[in-house]
Structures are given as structure tokens and as C-alpha cells.
């Protein structure tokens, strides 16, 4: 399975949900997805296109676009193509469906993203404070407008 056929299959199956697809090289493809369809697309990727390996899932903050982008990097055990899938969420209310039912190992990635960016994952099995202290929830330290770095974070350690 190569990059072209994967893109063709994806845009065939999800003509409205997937947009801005791009082939960067023969092993790297990029696609944007509407946030409400992310679980359906992931399930299709895993079942039909053998994208069985979620490399990582994380977020990036774009204050100038007023959005937080959730990025899924999905690879495969059978073919060398890696798909980077992005979903743009509004910055004041970032909510997206959890993909844990499809990719089991998304669990910790989503908990970490919630701690650091405040992206709320709906129907996540266990969305509680994970790597930062519970009293820091709400500060979202990896957002670009976080003022506490490095002083506040260092104070926390003492």
C-alpha cells in the first residue's frame, strides 16, 4: 500500500470529513479531519488501511489562529507510510472525542494532553490529573500564553 492509494481511499470514504490532504514524501502523508469525525476515521484507518500503530498523539497551541490543533501520528506494522492527522479545535472550548476505543495506547497521550493543554477528551475512560499536580490543572503549562515558565514551575518543585 503506498501513499497515493491511501490518500485516494481516505478521500473516497470521507469526502467531507477529510480535507487538505498532502503527500510530503512516499512515506509521509498529511490530512486534516473535522473534530467530530475523528473516531470514525481512526477506525477506518485501523481496520481497512492497516494503520495499527499510533506513534503519538499530542496538541499544539496557535493563539494567533485562536485554535489548538490535536495531532495524531499514525503508523503501521505492515507498510512504511506514516499519516499525520490534524484536528483544529476552538481555543476557548477544546473538546474532542477520545480515540481510546480504537487505539488503546492513546489513553496516556490523551491524559497528558489534557494536563498540559486543557484539551478535554469526551468519553475518555480515566481523565484525571496525570503528570502535573492536581492544583496545577487549569493553568495548561504548554500553551503559548502560559506565564509561569520557568519560575512558577520551579517554585512548585521546592
Amino acid at each position, binding site marked *: 500500500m503506498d501513499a497515493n492509494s491511501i490518500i485516494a481511499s481516505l478521500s473516497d470514504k470521507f469526502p467531507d470529513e477529510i480535507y487538505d490532504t498532502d503527500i510530503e514524501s512516499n*512515506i*509521509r502523508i*498529511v490530512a486534516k479531519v473535522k473534530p467530530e469525525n475523528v473516531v470514525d476515521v481512526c477506525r477506518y484507518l485501523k481496520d481497512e488501511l492497516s494503520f*495499527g*500503530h*499510533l*506513534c*503519538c498523539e*499530542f496538541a*499544539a*497551541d496557535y493563539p494567533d489562529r485562536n485554535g489548538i490543533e490535536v*495531532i495524531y*501520528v499514525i503508523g503501521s*506494522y505492515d507498510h*512504511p507510510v*506514516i499519516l*499525520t492527522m490534524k484536528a483544529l479545535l476552538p481555543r476557548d472550548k477544546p473538546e474532542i472525542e477520545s480515540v481510546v476505543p480504537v*487505539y*488503546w*495506547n492513546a*489513553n*496516556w497521550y490523551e491524559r497528558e494532553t489534557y494536563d*498540559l493543554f486543557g484539551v478535554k477528551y469526551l468519553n475518555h475512560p480515566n481523565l484525571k490529573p*496525570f*503528570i*502535573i499536580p492536581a492544583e496545577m490543572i487549569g493553568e495548561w*503549562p*504548554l500553551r503559548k500564553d502560559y506565564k509561569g*515558565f*520557568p519560575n512558577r*514551575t520551579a517554585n512548585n518543585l521546592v
Partner: protein
Amino acid sequence: MEETVGPSEMIVHLGPQHPMLPGPFRVNAKLRGETIVDSEVEIGYIHKGIEKILENKTYLQGITIVDRICYLEALTNEEAYVGCVEKLAGIEVPERAQYIRVIMEELSRIQSHILGMGEYASFIGFVSMFMYTIRDREDLMSVIDSVTGARITHSFLRFGGVKDDLPDGFKDDVKYVFGNLKKAIDQYEVLFSSDSIYKARTVGIGTLTADVAKDLGVSGPPLRATGVAFDIRRDEPYLVYNDLDFKVCTQKDGDVYARIQVRLDEMRESMYIVEQCLDQIPSGPLFPEGTAYGKRSPVMRIPAGEVFHRVEAPRGEMGFYMISDGSDKPYRVKIRGPVYPTLQALPPLLKGVTVADIVAIAGSMDTCTSEVDR
């Protein structure tokens, strides 16, 4: 994990400071008798915020920071980070520098496996094994030290090349160390396979099947021990791995014993790779000629773009996702460490085993909390 306990059940916390756990993390295990019914892993005790720190450092300063993600795989971490920048900026690495990188990374793979294996043996009470491995690792560390000038945090790679050339007599040093090491590895194998107590604690314990391992997202030796030949060096070659002859070491059983066996085989394979490199290495410059890249690169602005670059670290798939906005600092760096999914996969593995096996299973995954809490 449900906090409520039924009749004749109790919750036992193992860690965060436990002499047998490599780095602080906590296993909350719900027990019925001595059997684990349910468990959960807690991390975050040493979170360093490296992703945030990298956003506030220039690209060159970042090299020293990524060393500290995990000291046993410092060179492969650098490779992933530097590779990202090279892909973004379109820097071609000269062939000699690529060979030197491969040599150093394979040497660091051997020392990581050798320590992981020795630590693991000491976790299950085989402490003399730990002493043997530490002794043999020391020679290897001296060889690495003679090139990079440091034992664990090397800061050796640069954009477009490496900091220093191999010293005189490096080939002979490596030959001498490898001669001893090959004998030592054969000895470890005999020790492991002939010890009935060791076998009783490892054979058939913590078994993963290929499908489950893929589902859990583990990579590296725990995955290859289940028979899946997934190796980034083979599947998505970087540097000069395409020109080198090596095989991907796999085992069938997927238990603790198989994981250690994969590491033993991989050490032999890595030595074979280093020997090939030393025979094939061409002479030439260490940095691309006619560019500003060098040992002390000036402050550089990287073209805007996004890239995901992954390498095969000793423990599995190490990847960096880097977003650049065209300034001299990365806009966002995501570190995808190999141990993060491996540690996450502990609770399903621990279900139904006895308390004594927690350490045997957790240790065999060769976890590194420093990298999980990066």
C-alpha cells in the same frame, strides 16, 4: 482501577521509591490473596517539562537538553532530534559523519542493553550478574568516552555532522573490547540458560502475544520478543543502515525470558554492525562543505515546516515531532519515547500474576522513568 475493594481484597502501593524500580513510578495493585486482580501505574514524580524547555532554547542548545531525556540512550535521542532539524533545513550529512554516528549509536545500544540486562538480573535476585555486566560495560564506556569526551550525556551530534572525528587507534580499542565482550555475552547466555531458578522466574512469565503487543503499542525488544520483526533501522532506514548487513532479532515466546534473549542477540548484531562500519568507513569531511554548519554552528533559523523523524533507540521507537515557525527556536517539539507505551502496557500484563512477579515483569520491559516523565 476501582478504588473500592471487595471482601478479602486489598490495595498495595509499590513505589514510588522502591529499590527494585528503575526510577520513581508507582504501581497500585489490588490484590486478592497474592494474586493481582487489577492494577494501575502512576507517573509524574520527576516530570521535567523538556518539551517546554526546548521551545525556549535555540536549536543548538536543544542538543544538550535532549541528552537528559534518558541517559542510557542519549546518542539516539540526539539522533532523533538532530535528524528532525536536518530534515527541516535540508542538510545533507557527509558519509563519514553518518558512519561515525552509526558506530556511536550501536555502541550506546550495547551499553544500554548490557546495563538493562544486568539490572534486570539483580531485580530478581541474581545480583552477581549485575556485577559482571557492570564490569564489562566499563570498557565500553571508556571507548565511547574516548570519542565523545563524556560518559553519559555526550552532546556529540551536530547539525550536519558530528563534533569530533574518531581518535587514533579507535579501531584497535574496539577490537580489543569486542573480543572480551563476545566471550562475556556467551557467558551470560550460559549463565541465564543453565540457571534453574532464573528460568523458573522468567519462562512463561509476563507473556505477550504478537496481536496484543501491537494493540498495546509497545515497540523494541518487548515487541520483537513476540515474533514481530519491527525495527525502524530496517523498515524506515536512516543514516547508512541501508548499506549495512544485519538481521532483526526476534523470538517467538514473548515472555520475560525471550525479551532478555532478544537483547543478548541484539548486542551481537550491534557488534557486527560496528565491525562492518569500521571496515567500510570512508575518509572525508565531518560537515557538509561550503556551508556554515560546523562544530560551533551560528544561531540558525530553520525554515518553517513540520516533520516527524523516528529512530530505533535501544528500547524501541524514538520519535520527535517538530514544528518550526521559521525562527531560531522550535515552535513545538513532541517527544515520542519508546518506554511511554511500554510502561502503559503494564496493568494488562500484571493481571493475574503474583506480587513477586511485578518486579520481574516491570524490569524485563527495561523501563526508564526519566524518559516517561520527560
